[in-house]
């Protein structure tokens, strides 16, 4: 039998399997179990959620492998974990533990100011953040099997995720409508490989699934990103920094399943307790912004 281990199709395939789902940040096995019970399609295992990383400052690194392993043992759904941008040894360690997806994340302090991880060298699939189409295609060229908006994690403010999604999808539509002879100039302008620009034109979408992340605090936020064209939603601090995590987690899962049904969304949004306290991104000093990390 001709067998091949962890192909590109296996990597992108797992991303496809998470579509229509919610991926929740968790810091303990107990939170992971709450997330799984609420209907999370996967969990992101962390030591601190982005809101706490923001507040506490300092260098944010990969989580303690022990924390990640405990979370992996607690649930049966896929477990993701974050490495710093460019820190391929953190990624090697996460792969060695056996996590299902690595998020090369701007939420942690970047380890390399020039280079992202060369993700093709890994068996484990990667998700990377992007603010526009060029950035998304550069990450895919390096081997990312899933793209997410960067948003401003830990703010409870969805405005940046909306900006990034709109920007990526606007440029996808532009590429899809462009004649072939204009693709090289578009590729140059985007700073992206021509082959991937061609693929965007053929498919009318990114070559890998596009998920939304950053600042999701309510079921309506999640449904907004889905209506804009995201294929699934990451929720970070929004759940376990809220008044009633169980209820809110469940509501966001249901809202993603029926994102285009306002009547149902109204029912789902009722009586969820206090949402996380938000931060206004436009008054935030530049050095605190995460979206500018990575290139």
């Amino acid at each position, binding site marked *: *039998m*001709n*067998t*091949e*281990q*962890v*192909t590109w*199709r*296996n990597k992108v*395939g*797992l991303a*496809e*399997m*998470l*579509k*229509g*789902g919610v991926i929740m940040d968790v810091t303990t096995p107990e939170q992971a179990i709450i997330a*799984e*019970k609420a*209907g*999370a*399609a*996967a969990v992101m295992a962390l030591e601190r959620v982005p809101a706490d990383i923001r507040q506490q400052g300092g260098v944010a690194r990969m989580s303690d492998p022990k924390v990640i392993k405990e979370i992996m043992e607690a649930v*049966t*759904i*896929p477990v993701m974990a974050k490495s710093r941008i460019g820190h391929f040894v953190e990624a090697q360690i996460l*792969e060695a533990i*056996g*996590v*299902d*997806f690595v998020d090369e994340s701007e939420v942690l302090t970047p380890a390399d100011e020039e280079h992202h991880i060369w993700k093709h060298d890994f*068996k*484990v*699939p990667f998700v990377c953040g992007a603010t526009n189409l060029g950035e998304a295609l550069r990450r895919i060229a390096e081997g990312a099997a899933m793209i997410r908006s960067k948003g401003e994690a830990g703010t409870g403010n969805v405005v940046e995720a909306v900006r990034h999604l709109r920007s990526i999808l606007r440029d996808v539509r532009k590429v899809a409508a462009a004649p072939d002879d204009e693709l090289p100039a578009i590729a140059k302008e985007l700073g992206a490989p021509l082959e991937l620009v061609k693929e965007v034109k053929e498919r009318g979408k990114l070559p890998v699934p596009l998920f939304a992340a950053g600042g999701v605090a309510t079921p309506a936020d999640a449904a907004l990103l889905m209506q804009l064209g995201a294929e699934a939603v990451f929720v970070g601090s929004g759940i376990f920094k809220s008044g009633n995590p169980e209820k809110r987690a469940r509501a966001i*899962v*249901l809202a993603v*399943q*029926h994102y285009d049904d306002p009547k149902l969304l109204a029912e789902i949004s009722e009586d969820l307790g206090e949402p996380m306290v938000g931060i206004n991104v436009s008054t935030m000093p530049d050095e605190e912004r995460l979206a500018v990390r990575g290139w």
Partner: protein
Amino acid sequence: MVKLKARIGVVAYQGAVSEHLRALERAGAEALPVKWPRDLEGLQGVVIPGGESTVIGDAMQTWGLLDALREWVRDGGAVFGTCAGAILMATEIKNGKPDQPRLGIMPLTANRNGFGRQVDSFEADICVRGIEGSAFRAVFIRAPYFEVTDPEVEVLAAVDHKVVAARYGRHLATAFHPELTDDLRIHRLFIEMATGGQKNPG
């Protein structure tokens, strides 16, 4: 006379929904998303896609589709599950969530994540009974395998002696993802099963 297209639904809460819709259309069926019990009306077959079995099963229960689909199956409907979908068709689930909601219409045991985690995912050329021509390129992602003891369940394919495709009356289960390749032979087989004369056992 123009032959009517088979109408096949795809359970559309979570997972590889669009891939199945596209594969079914390309295989010559009319493919429709299913989110509510009323969506089952007029369908000859239903596909439960890959995704997370805990999420899809829970959604089916929440939105009333689990009971409705069981009734629809009793009336003769055909179901095709891939990976997570196949797990939900099994009467027994190993390594699942306790009390995981399921359809339970195929008498076999699904060993969830039986081939391991994502770093153990693989592709293989396999022979599938009932599929003519060359081997089928099968994509396995955190895949389950099946333990079959009921003689009425027909084993269609195995990898390392682990059952990865099985048929029971008008129902079809695969541990791999035919919707992720361009090979339509398994979708065609299911469309034939859903529109053919064979009945469900029991």
